[in-house]
């Protein structure tokens, strides 16, 4: 059949004190979509950095054979020159430049340094057509959504005569619809004969598009599965090295009185004053209950949560928040926190952590009063608290003095959770608590949520992953376009029912 386009043999890469990769083998055939999966920190990204020349030849052991030739890439330019293009998880686009400028950045059609804009724009138009993006090449990147930005990245890759396209978690920040479109695009490229390597956590996506799956764990290749052997269970077992009979920890809910209640909550857009983002929402959460809020991207779930939390989002906010039947003042974050409401943000790097400070300082930040007397911090008590939560939430770090910026996504999320656990809230709102986290860490987060509910806290989980909501919640609200369009007990819910509620609402709205 097809020939092998890429072969990586016995790749070993050592960092001071750590063996990141040991004898990894990867063999990719021409024209296939090859998925690489593994837990965070398993070595996927390191492997791709070796392949693309970020770690130049000589800093690792082993061979890279591309199109039958052994390659010694000295840098990214080298590998791109051969047609290997990598698209990183964090997009590398300049927000205030146009699509065309971004696509040909550093590679402009120019003569003696003078840019030929017409040529650039025409080429851009052709490329955008290929990726199915209908936008003016002059549109600024900042004015298009993440899904479209991802497509621009791919168009940029295509402009470089790509032979092997590597996508590092391309759908991590995309909505369901954009993800589907992206995967369709990958399949289309495959039909045209392009080879892709897809790194992803989302096993259903891999199931859908991948021809082969290579599983990496602890810096080693575990196995490569052919199309007919790919199944979620098989991949998970292989990824975590043990079988997870259940992806969600068992719970025995003891649900009590209503603790937290929001009545007729309305919010307007911070910039467009007449656009109502949240339209009269009523929800309640009981003691010991985990309530989910389902919905598509853009349904307004994060906006709802942020506006509740000290009015951190929006304008002209109206409505009532009750805690244990009493109305509470949520006009500032500190007041909200004082009442015992905590919100764990969706974007932990931007909103959750001080990445240039260590674990200890991050954990105590929301409750410095808990480790100080008369505003003087008791260093030892703080250290004890940090160590305690590190153990409770199983943060994997050399010590609590490790910078949070150097932790993996799962461990960063545990630090954010620890911060809010130490603030000891009655109500905990978790926004996409497992986004971009590997399967093992997800299970740990679920376990923490279950334990908190068992302790009698009221918990709200916002998630775009429906199986997750079905797996860990007791009751699910469905949200669409700023409204609650459905409510169902989790035992009675299914992905179809949730989708039906959304679609029905869309029909009504139209």
């Amino acid at each position, binding site marked *: 059949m097809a020939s092998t386009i890429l072969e990586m043999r016995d790749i070993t890469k050592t960092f001071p004190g750590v063996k990141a990769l040991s004898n990894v083998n990867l063999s990719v055939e021409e024209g296939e979509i090859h998925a690489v999966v593994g837990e965070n920190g398993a070595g996927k990204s390191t492997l791709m950095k070796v392949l693309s020349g970020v770690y130049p030849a000589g800093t690792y052991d082993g061979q890279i054979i591309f199109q039958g030739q052994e390659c010694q890439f000295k840098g990214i330019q080298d590998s791109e020159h051969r047609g290997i293009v990598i698209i990183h998880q964090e997009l590398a686009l300049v927000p205030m430049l146009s699509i065309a400028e971004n696509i040909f950045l550093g590679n402009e059609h120019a003569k003696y340094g003078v840019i030929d804009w017409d040529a650039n724009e025409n080429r851009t138009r052709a490329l955008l057509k290929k990726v199915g993006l209908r936008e003016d090449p002059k549109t600024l990147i900042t004015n298009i959504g993440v899904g479209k930005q991802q497509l621009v990245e791919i168009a940029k890759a295509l402009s470089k005569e790509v032979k092997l396209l590597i996508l590092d978690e391309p759908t991590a920040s995309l909505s369901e619809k954009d993800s589907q479109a992206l995967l369709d695009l990958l399949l289309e490229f495959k039909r045209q004969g392009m080879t892709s390597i897809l790194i992803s956590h989302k096993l259903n996506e891999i199931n859908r598009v991948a021809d082969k799956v290579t599983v990496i764990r602890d810096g080693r290749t575990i196995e490569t599965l052919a199309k007919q052997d790919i199944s979620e269970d098989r991949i998970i077992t292989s990824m975590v090295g043990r079988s997870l009979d259940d992806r969600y920890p068992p719970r025995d809910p003891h649900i009590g009185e209503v603790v937290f209640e929001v009545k007729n909550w309305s919010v307007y857009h911070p910039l467009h004053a007449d656009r109502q983002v949240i339209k009269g929402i009523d929800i309640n959460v009981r003691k010991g209950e985990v309530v989910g809020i389902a919905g598509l991207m853009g349904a307004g779930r994060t906006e709802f949560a942020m506006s509740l939390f000290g009015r951190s989002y929006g304008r002209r906010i109206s409505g009532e928040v009750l805690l244990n039947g009493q109305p509470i003042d949520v006009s500032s974050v500190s007041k909200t926190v004082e009442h015992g409401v905590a919100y764990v943000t969706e974007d932990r790097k931007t*909103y959750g*952590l*001080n990445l240039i400070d260590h674990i200890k300082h991050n954990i105590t*930040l929301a409750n410095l009063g808990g480790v100080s007397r008369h*505003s*003087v911090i008791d260093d030892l008590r703080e250290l004890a608290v940090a160590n305690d939560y590190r153990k409770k939430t199983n943060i994997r770090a050399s*010590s609590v003095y490790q910078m949070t910026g150097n932790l993996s996504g799962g461990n960063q999320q545990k630090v954010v959770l620890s911060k809010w656990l130490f603030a000891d809230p009655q109500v905990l709102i978790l926004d996409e608590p497992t986004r971009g986290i590997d399967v093992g860490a997800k*299970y740990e987060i679920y*376990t923490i949520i279950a334990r908190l509910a068992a302790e009698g806290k009221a918990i709200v989980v916002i998630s775009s992953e429906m199986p997750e909501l079905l797996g860990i919640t007791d009751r699910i609200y469905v949200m669409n376009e700023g409204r609650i369009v459905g409510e169902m007990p989790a035992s009675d819910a299914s992905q179809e029912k949730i989708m039906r509620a959304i679609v029905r609402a869309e029909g009504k709205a139209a």
Partner: protein
Amino acid sequence: MSTESAPAPKSNVAEDVQQGPRVAVSALMTNLREYGLILALIAIMVFFQFTTSGTLFKPVNLSNLIQQNSFIIVMALGMLLVIVSGHIDLSVGSVAGFIGALAAMMMVIWPLGPLSNPLVVSIICLIMGGLIGAAQGYWIAYHRIPSFIVTLAGMLIFRGICQALLGGGSSVGPLPPEFKALSSGFIPDVIGPLTLIPPTVNAAGKTIMGSGLTLHMTTIVLGVLAVLAYAYFGLSTRRKRERHGYEAEPFVLFVAKTLVGSALALFLVYQFASYRGLPVVLLVMGVLISLFVFITKRMTIGRRIYAMGGNVKAAQLSGINTERLTLLVFVNMGVLSALGGLIIAARLGQAVPAAGLGSELDVIAAVFIGGASAMGGVGQVIGAVVGGFIMGVMNNGMSIMGVNVDWQQVVKGLVLLGAVIFDVYNKNKA
């Protein structure tokens, strides 16, 4: 039981054992960086001691050095917080100049009666500084106008007001001696001097200046007490950590640090005691430095400032009122700028239109030499103080050597650039 079924937590014992040496190594590394700066200062001092053939460490020169640079260090304490919180303040030199002029007008020109008492004037001036800081901080904190722009405007405005107050190019003075004591005074010797070697008397029956050795005993006693307290607190903190089973920094390192620090301090104390004792301004500075070390290391407000500089959004969502905190940081800067202005005026004995001109750059340079990050969130009080002294010693040493002022600036610029490059290089390596 059910909630514990998933990944078995690692055994705590094993973790701690593994953790021990690594923590020690990292403690050593951070300490090396911190001490690198102090070692640099010592190296520079030794260098100038050598090139000025011993003038640098002469008691009289040490006193001068302190009196010339104290205002930079005082303002650097405020600037450190400003820079850590992710801002900058370009107006400090002008504010200092304006406050100096205001103080002089109140004490010398305006008929204020009892209000022209130096103490009253100083207090009013400090409050005025706080108000100026609040006025600038208000726009920065509550209206999100970049601090660079607000304080650039402040720099022009207050220099202008300073010159206008003094009526064009004239200077106002002389200032009362009680006020001048803030900068050029020495603490009184309440214990009484101790004469070790009586001064030589010449044939005419007059004592020869600088001969003999008389020690200012109050200075000696204060110095020894300070060193003992330093060692005692270091030791007791260590004990407490050990009692709770936490790894402290390696003992050898601790002893070395304490011994070198104490020896250096005692040497300086001895030098001061053999001249006229501790300069008042050094005492003021010492108290302020200790206060700011305490605020940044141990108080919740300090921690919040670092968190705000590290990630302002995360700080807000953790319940920190970042607007008020920013305002406070600038109020603090204003008060310290005012104090800087008073110190300058007291040293000159008069208010001049150019007082503090360009000193904002020295202050900012001191903070960056001290290892603060221009992005905010990183920086230490001790670093800024040592940075200030590095600048001061270089100024003083080069002046004694007779290096042209033009070239002094070139050297200072190179040192600033070098220090920051060294920092960035270190960070990337880590």
